[in-house]
């Protein structure tokens, strides 16, 4: 470390850290690509700032969003953040596919640049797309489904968002100042240690992971407490919507799985900053400890992402089959089993590290056990559709695509669980194909299904159906073209993270894959087009009554968009599908006997302040600007202490206002014609559903 020049004021930050410096010194395609990426980022930020200023949106942005403690708005901000990061992640994927599609030994990127791409792609897609997407949905949906007015700790929720966003911004900053890690999203030492990688790259990774990890852990605690403590009267555990069950399991996974990751990253930081030797080659350091700690987190991680996705599918299959969810208890047991088993299989990420056959066999069998509850879930969803009345709306199309593609991912997963086969395909593109096969149809399709399903609830109008269908088709086809070929080149022995290759027989597969990547890119664009068209035509798609899909759970029983307090009067739950039951018994949309004042958390800037300050703090640590890191640490501590003395943390919404708003909405419901499912996607659908029970047996 001493060999690196470092000044007191700027640490090791110099002009050479800007990509433009490399472009001037050594003009070439590689530098142009790097500068273009930085340029898009800076330009994009400038455009956003301009729009905000031109339309005078700073005030509303600050009052209604950045300082809001409303779980619904925080959820939406999480999802917007995830979509922005998704755009970058997809673009990086396309660039990598393009690099590999060049002929044997060819390509336009340097190895180090390519390595940054696969490292940021993985880090972004897991920590800054999948996690915020899932956390965003849980934020928005879960309190509405359990009949609560907010999460248990609304300010902590805001802080979680702030920390996640500031950590994500570090990846953006690394595009423009310095470079990101080349050690992959797993950042295995000793490669990422100070001896082999003295630059700033691994430090960007470490602090982004640590800070976002704290944010996510706080979210997990928040969600668990919310479900345990804040369910509406009568909402027993076995009446929880399936999505909320998956949230409980996911929260438990977050609480237990995130700390090992933070510990692993901090130990690596100790190695890099303080000359410790936890994972170095010498002085007793051992990278095998890192691999264990990382995957102790890493395996539960994929389940904490995919379980809520299963939850979304469970809601979608039931609603669009117009039927009760089949095998509720079975699904609860399966979800819990997966959550518990996910902690028993981490070693399968390194069957090849030289442990005994006995240990490999035990972990291999444990891994295959997860296939049992997962298989049961798939069959349960099929049984939910069976004897239903299936509407092939956009969320349902994602669901059907998921069922078919996901079992292929399951197939390759069980194959990989066999240590003897894993010895061959570990670290190859077979593995890459496998985890994309479970994460795209499993998680991403669920998120997009969720966007189409709950968007009208969040914003009061439906998304365009036609462009929704186009994007489903593009995602499914793009996925098949991109990742099916990778299974085969993986079996043919092509290592993952290869920036070039020599075997000419790989070429057709790589060409197919880049075509697929372009289709995926157009799928992403079609999502944006769908958003644009839907906002443009929103007047024809309004659903103010709030139940556009003949929903079954409580979130559909309130206006769209919901008021800040969610429920004018807390619902009394009598059955599993509480709202479906109410509609059937004619108890939906009833005028309550009385109203009470509602206390809601007051807006606070603390989450935003901690977002900015933690960002500065990370930047200072990455660049060794010690005085700044210290200053910001003290500032953050002071802000938290000062804020904690505040006593006026809530505002009261008077009963009269609630009565007036709620009864205005009930009048609207009474005036609105109920629509049949035939008109579900027509302008006639104002969100008042006529249950479709003719011919039911």
């Amino acid at each position, binding site marked *: 470390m001493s*060999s690196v020049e470092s000044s007191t004021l700027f640490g090791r930050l110099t002009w050479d850290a800007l990509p433009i410096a490399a472009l001037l010194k050594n003009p070439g395609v590689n530098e142009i690509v790097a500068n273009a990426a930085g340029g898009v980022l800076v330009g994009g930020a400038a455009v956003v700032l301009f729009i905000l200023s031109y339309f005078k949106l700073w005030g509303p942005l600050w009052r209604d969003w950045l300082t809001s403690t409303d779980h619904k708005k925080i959820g939406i901000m999480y999802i917007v953040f995830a979509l922005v990061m998704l755009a970058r992640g997809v673009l990086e994927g396309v660039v990598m596919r393009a690099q590999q599609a060049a002929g044997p030994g060819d390509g336009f990127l*340097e190895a*180090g640049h390519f390595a940054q791409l696969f490292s940021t792609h993985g880090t972004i897609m897991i920590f800054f797309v999948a996690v915020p997407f899932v956390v965003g949905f849980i934020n928005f949906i879960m309190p509405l489904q359990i009949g609560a007015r907010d999460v248990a700790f609304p300010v902590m929720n805001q802080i979680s968002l702030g920390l996640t966003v500031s950590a994500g911004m570090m990846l953006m900053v690394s595009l423009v100042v310095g470079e990101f890690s*080349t050690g992959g999203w797993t950042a*295995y030492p*000793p*490669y990422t240690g100070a*001896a*082999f990688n*003295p630059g700033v790259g691994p430090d960007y990774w470490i602090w982004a992971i640590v800070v976002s990890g704290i944010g996510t852990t706080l979210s997990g605690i928040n969600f668990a407490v919310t479900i345990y403590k804040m369910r509406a009267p009568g909402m027993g555990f076995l009446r929880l919507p399936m999505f909320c069950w998956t949230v409980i399991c996911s929260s438990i996974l977050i609480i237990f799985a995130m700390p090992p990751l933070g510990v692993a990253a901090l130990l690596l930081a100790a190695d890099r900053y303080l000359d410790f030797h936890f994972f170095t*080659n*010498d*002085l007793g350091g051992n990278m095998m400890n890192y691999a264990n700690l990382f995957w102790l987190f890493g395996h539960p991680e994929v389940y904490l992402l995919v379980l809520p996705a299963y939850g979304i599918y469970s809601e979608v299959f039931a609603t669009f089959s117009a039927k*009760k969810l089949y*095998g509720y208890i079975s699904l609860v047991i399966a979800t819990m089993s997966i959550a518990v088993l996910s902690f028993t299989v981490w070693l399968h990420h390194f069957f*090849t590290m*030289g442990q005994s056959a006995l240990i490999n066999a035990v972990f*291999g069998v444990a891994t*295959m*056990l997860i296939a*049992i509850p997962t*298989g*049961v879930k798939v069959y349960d969803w*099929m049984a939910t*559709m069976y*004897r*239903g*009345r*299936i509407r*092939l709306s956009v969320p349902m199309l994602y669901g059907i*695509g998921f*069922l*078919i*593609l996901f079992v*292929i991912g*399951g*197939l390759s997963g*069980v*194959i990989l669980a*066999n*240590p*003897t086969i894993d*010895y*061959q395909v570990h*670290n190859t593109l077979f593995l890459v194909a496998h985890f994309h096969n479970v994460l795209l149809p499993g998680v991403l399709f669920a998120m997009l299904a969720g966007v189409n399903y709950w968007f009208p609830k969040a914003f009061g109008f439906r998304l365009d159906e036609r462009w929704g269908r186009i994007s*489903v088709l593009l995602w499914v086809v793009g996925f098949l073209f991109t990742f099916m070929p990778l299974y*085969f080149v993986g*079996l*043919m*022995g092509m290592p*993952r*993270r290869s*920036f*070039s290759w*020599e075997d000419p*027989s790989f070429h*057709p597969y790589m060409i197919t894959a880049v075509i697929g990547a372009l289709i995926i890119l157009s799928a992403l664009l079609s999502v944006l087009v769908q958003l644009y068209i839907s906002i443009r035509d929103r007047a024809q798609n309004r659903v103010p009554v709030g139940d556009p899909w003949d929903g079954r759970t409580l979130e559909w029983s309130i206006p769209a968009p919901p008021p800040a307090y969610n429920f004018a009067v807390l619902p009394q739950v009598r059955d599993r599908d509480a709202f479906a039951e109410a509609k059937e018994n004619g108890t939906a949309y009833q005028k309550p006997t009385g109203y009470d004042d509602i206390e809601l958390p007051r807006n606070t800037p603390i989450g935003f302040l901690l977002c900015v300050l933690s960002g500065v703090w990370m930047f200072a640590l990455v660049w060794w600007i010690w005085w700044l890191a210290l200053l910001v640490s003290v500032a953050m501590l002071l802000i938290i202490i000062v804020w904690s003395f505040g006593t006026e943390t809530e505002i009261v919404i008077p009963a009269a206002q609630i009565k007036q708003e709620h009864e205005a909405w009930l009048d609207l419901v009474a005036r609105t014609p109920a629509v049949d499912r035939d008109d579900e996607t027509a302008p006639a659908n104002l969100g008042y559903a006529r249950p479709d*029970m003719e011919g*039911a*047996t």
Partner: protein
Amino acid sequence: MNSARPFAALPVLVVSAVMLAAMPALADSNSFMDPQGPVALAQKNHLIRATALIMIAVIPVLVLVPLIVWRYRRRKNSSAAYRPKWEFSPLLETTMWSVPVLIVAILSVYLWKATHRLDPYAANFGSDPAVEVQVVGLDWKWLFIYPELGIATVGEMGMPVDRQIAMELTTDTVMQSFLISALGGQIYAMPGMTTQLHLAASEPGRMQGENTQYNGRGFTGQKFDAVVMEADDFEAWVDTVRSKGRALDDDTYRILAQRSDRTEVQQALATPDMPETALYFTLPDAGLFDKIVHRYHNGTALPDADQPGTTSYGQEATQ
């Protein structure tokens, strides 16, 4: 589009079939799908058997999902039953749980047996004494030391056919992963530690070996030829290496261990006698491998200048 969706399984199957058919059968294999030794053969068979078994659980989904969606889609005058309250059937439930349980049980037995039989640490192939090879991962080349034969090579790993090869692996830089797909593997190689791998080849031929763990700009070039020879040819090969090889002394090792790819190191160390894609060495110090492993256990920190793989140890050539 409504009607197209249920048949999403079709492109999967078509694409898969086309790609399987397109997978080339190579004469000199680089993949366990064209196995050249007992381990890779067993791995391939295990893959096929496991896939077939799992298909029992997968095919019903691929077939039934489109059928269910088609039969129960909402439409005018549908004759299909509609039972919105149906949520449980004991018989169906039993089937749903027991089919995956049975398949996983059978697979587990296979898994258990195969994992023990193909344990990379187990010496399972024949009673002849094994050829010992010590493998050192460097940035970005593999060094093969034959301690009993007093030789070492880079870029070419000679081995006799039908005889057990007992490998011991380490690295003198970051972690790497060693794989000769057509024969078997893979296993991690880590500094200051050793792992083991036992292989055998059933036919003479030339196959590719590689590192699969990203370790910098020379990563994709860190390949070598595993050359399987008849016993006589192997002995002749050993003699060639011994006669044409240069001594792998400390100075030579220092150059070899620098961050250099196969081409660069070939330029730095090859003599005109050597083949274009391999380096041959004689071994003045039969304990080289142990020396490399033990460098990390001195009880003192290793300065970067003595750590191969760092910039201070040897300036990395620019591209």
